[in-house]
């Protein structure tokens, strides 16, 4: 936990540092805008002065027209500045979001599939999409505000000081009260905001899970109970949000309070000065009015800071999710690159793997060899460790001890890009991407020719069900493969392997969802595909167990028998 906090701090600081560089134009515009505010207040004060004390008209020295024209010029300028600020802020936000999203995507990509064993897909997606979107305000609003809240009031205060020193003192003291109040409320707000963001992420993961399994919930007749649980979660979220908001409102009330006190004090003191000495004004009316009129502008930057405070809390929320990401594994020093046409000899040398200390080894001290262009068949009950072996071969996970050697080179020293260039893989439960069937098959090789695609479609027996689909290969399939049965989706995965045509072929129960007739077909094609390749097949199908090759019997993570079947 302590470690986490330190990491959160480091990440947050890095973001602030990177972000501050880009908000420079915003700060310049903001400073400029303060001077214009002073100018505008001057114009109004002088005009009012002339109105209230007509004798002043001569002493001021500006013609009324001059004042009106400068007022127009100034507010046009201010309008333009506000307009540019809006656009620049948007640009800053877009750039920052792009940078962060790319960073997160690359990070997840580099860790690879093993991240899914540790974190929920919903939570990760929410980090990459929603939390990054939510950070827009941090860079476009909070960072400029965090510089300007100090700079702008100081400029205005100096201007007031030249005109009416004691008013400057009163306003300055009221202004100082704000950061003090903020500091008191702010500590509570930061903690509450962080908790709220964690709650939000958890809530999202929960919703995604429930939505994916909604058919299961409905058919079990539990939709109402689940709705109640969602109501509870939503209510919890409301209470947490209100906690954050209560503090935020208090802190903005503290600014209102300081401002109202400043206005009242300045106004009442002005009034005293006007009336104390028998109608003689001890201070010029224009100065008094100026001090009064500029007060809202003095507090405006503080107000923007308070408004942007929630944006800052979002960074802390995102930081908490970021530090939960596992670290990218360190690259080994020698990144071997494999030649694609190599025929590959695979060796397992005393390999063990532990998912979870408490549950013991998933794979224990396994050694075997697979000669180039031969087939090895892993046989065993579910949970015997077949999938773990395939996952290690694909580089999704790394052996806890021992080595896997490709032509004598330790797998973990080989660039994973060059391993994936060499391998084709069919898993237990293929992911079908949103898109057409064609795109899903071409995923394995985007530049494949139509003839290659056709061959793959035939090899995987997809052409058997193609005619039943409304648009053939161009039929859209949804998340999880709507319109395709489990077996049909599996055949898409098999077609991918056909298309890839790689020297290594790893098969993890490729026929688990198929009927015997199709299974027979598929095995026939798979045997065809296995020619001149190194193949490792994990299966418990009776048909698979009759295949030629080296049969390796697994039980509870150990090899219990190894036989050559002709």
């Amino acid at each position, binding site marked *: 936990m302590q470690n986490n906090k330190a990491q959160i701090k480091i990440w947050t600081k890095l973001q602030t540092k990177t972000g501050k560089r880009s908000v420079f134009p915003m700060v310049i515009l903001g400073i400029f805008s303060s001077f214009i505010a002073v100018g505008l207040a001057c114009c109004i004060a002088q005009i009012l002065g002339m109105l209230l004390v007509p004798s002043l008209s001569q002493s001021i020295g500006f013609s009324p027209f001059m004042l009106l024209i400068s007022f127009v010029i100034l507010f046009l300028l201010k309008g333009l500045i506000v307009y540019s600020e809006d656009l620049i802020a948007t640009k800053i936000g877009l750039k920052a979001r792009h940078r962060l999203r790319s960073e997160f995507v690359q990070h997840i990509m580099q860790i690879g599939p093993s991240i899914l064993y540790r974190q929920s897909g919903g939570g990760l997606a929410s980090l990459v999409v929603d939390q990054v979107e939510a950070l827009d305000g941090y860079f476009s609003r909070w960072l400029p505000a965090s510089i300007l809240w100090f700079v702008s009031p100081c400029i205005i205060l100096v201007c007031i000081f030249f005109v009416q020193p004691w008013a400057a003192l009163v306003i300055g003291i009221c202004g100082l009260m704000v950061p003090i109040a903020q500091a008191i409320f702010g500590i509570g707000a930061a903690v509450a905001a962080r908790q709220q963001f964690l709650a939000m992420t958890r809530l999202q993961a929960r919703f995604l899970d429930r939505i994916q399994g909604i058919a299961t919930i409905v058919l079990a007749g539990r939709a109402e109970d689940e709705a109640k649980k969602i109501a509870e979660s939503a209510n919890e979220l409301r209470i947490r949000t209100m906690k954050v908001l209560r503090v935020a409102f208090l802190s903005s009330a503290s600014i209102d309070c300081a401002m109202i006190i400043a206005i009242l004090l300045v106004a009442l003191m002005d*009034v005293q000065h006007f009336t104390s000495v028998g109608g003689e004004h001890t201070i010029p009316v224009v100065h008094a009015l100026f001090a009064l009129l500029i007060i809202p502008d003095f507090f405006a930057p503080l107000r923007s800071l308070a408004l942007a405070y929630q944006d800052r809390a979002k960074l802390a929320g995102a930081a908490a999710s970021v530090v939960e990401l596992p670290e990218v594994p360190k690259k080994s020093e020698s990144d071997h690159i494999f030649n694609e046409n190599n025929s590959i000899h695979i060796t397992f040398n005393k390999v063990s793997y532990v998912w979870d200390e408490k549950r013991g080894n998933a794979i224990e001290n396994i050694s075997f060899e697979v000669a180039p262009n031969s087939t090895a068949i892993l046989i065993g009950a579910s949970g015997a460790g077949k999938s773990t072996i395939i996952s290690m071969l694909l580089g999704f996970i790394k052996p806890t001890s021992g080595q896997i050697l490709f032509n004598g080179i330790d797998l973990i020293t080989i660039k994973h890009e060059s391993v994936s260039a060499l391998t084709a893989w069919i898993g237990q439960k293929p992911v079908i991407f949103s898109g057409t069937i064609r795109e899903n098959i071409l995923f394995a090789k985007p530049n494949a020719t139509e003839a290659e695609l056709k061959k793959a479609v035939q090899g995987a027996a997809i052409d058997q069900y193609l005619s039943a689909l409304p648009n053939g290969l161009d039929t859209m399939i949804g998340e999880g493969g709507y319109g395709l049965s489990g077996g049909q989706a599996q055949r898409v995965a098999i077609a991918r392997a056909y298309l890839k045509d790689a020297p290594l072929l790893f098969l993890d129960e490729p026929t*688990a969802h198929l009927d015997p007739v199709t299974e027979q077909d598929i095995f026939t094609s798979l045997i065809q595909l296995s020619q001149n390749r190194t193949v490792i097949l994990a299966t418990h199908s009776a048909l698979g167990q009759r295949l030629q090759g080296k049969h390796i019997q697994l039980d509870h993570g150990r090899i219990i028998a190894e036989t050559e079947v002709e």
Partner: protein
Amino acid sequence: MSDIQDPLRQQETPKAAFQQIFIVWKPHIASLTIGIIFSLIALALGLTLMSSAGGKIAFAAMGMLVISSVFLKLLGGGRLLMRYVERLYTHNVMFKAIADLRVWFFAKLSKGAAAGLGFRHSGDVLSRLVSDIETLDGLYLRLMLPFAGSILTFLVLAFVIGSVHLPLAFCIAFLYILAGFVCPLVSALMTKKHGQTILNSVAQLRIGVLDFIQGLREIRAFGAEDRITALLDAREKKLFEKQFKQAKIIALMSFLSFISSQVAVLLILAAALDIGFHGIGAAHIVVCLFLTITAFEVVVPLTKAGGLAGQIINAATRVVGVNKGHGYDVPKGSEEAPEQTDIELNDIGFQWNKDRPFVYRHLNLKISQGERVAIIGPSGAGKSTLAALLLKVIAPQEGKITLGSKDLAVLTEESVRKKIAWLSQNTHLFDDTIRQNLLLSYPQATDDELWQALSEAAVADVVKAMPDGLDTWLGEGGIKVSGGQGRRIALARTLLSKAPILLLDEPTTGLDADTEMEFFKILNQISTDRTIILIAHRLTGTEKLDKVWRLSDSCLICEN
């Protein structure tokens, strides 16, 4: 991958959508109204404070004391307190209403979702549930409240200045309408179109990211890292372009609104110098000026809020339209399912869609209570469709299904599903403990019953060996147990249910041969009084069955 063509086209009209949302919010209408009144009081105090402060100085400068300092202080304190109370109150009420909306959404989704999510991506649905509903709090907090406030301000402004100088009041009112109503409305309309596309772009990005994360294995195995990065970048860029376009329009409208507010101040200043408008007393000018400045401060931010209107409208239509175009026409029944549970399918014809071929034509099937039958057919022959028909997720276009000789069409869905426990190849294991996963089918079950069900599904030993036993947490999609173990836990959940009919749709998918045999042996021993319908692509020979039906050419052939 290409963009999804139209997962989101099914939408309500904005009017119907808002009507629906207000129906859901009905219990909160009184509190929402009180919130509006609170916010108007706070605003009125603010307006009075500013004009009184201006007035006090003006009169004082002319040597008069008309407004007391105590009155000002009271106003200031009241304004502060009221503003704080108002904000807390309105936000709390709104969040309550939003929570209700989430529950309503889930309930509605569950009504149309039994056939699975179909073409709707869970990423898209999640974005509706989370961000779209969240956007809707702006409807009250950022549109209705400020709008009510700007109407009040308008009336006060028109009345106060109007009682001083009518032509000036007309001009100020015109500018106020421009800044407070026209600019926000224009930015609302201009961004309505963009709001739609922005929400769609976010949904597209989210679908892309979910595909990326769930497909990490595929991406790694096929070396598709660069392609996926490019795809995500392209989707993000699309979103950014639209966001920037919208920001530009809103910035322009804000500019116009700001300029109108300054022109209003300019007019009063001119009047102060006796230019344009003549004969207004000095004190009146100062009061009008302070009031005008404060009044326009209220409305200038409205233009940015108006920009949200587009997003809010689109969020509303997406949230309310979640099931549109997805409901399968299933007749709503009113009767409870009978005790007797013979099943009969008579001359059934079914097609998923008019442009798809018939899955069945002239299908006949009879399963008596307590019978054990298997329905066998190759993958894609429509075995799962049969399960959907029996569960009243879909209804046949031709023919009749009866349960206990009552037409399924007249029975309520709930009572039918209470009779049939279902296990399919798509049964979902939740990101929760094993206990919670099991209790889904029978919430009152005791621990003994849970263990009983687990051992019936031949998975009790595995669960016992887990560090936390029944309280072991299954990861998302049950990723921390092996495929076979996960299936068996789902099976245990089905067995736990007290339903008289067990509908097992490929229950042994993913199990190895030995475990499969063991499972069928167990199935043979238990639940002797239950009807068992086993749907499979092949038989192992272990099953003890009364009848076997084979699906071929869209009808069923019985072979004992």
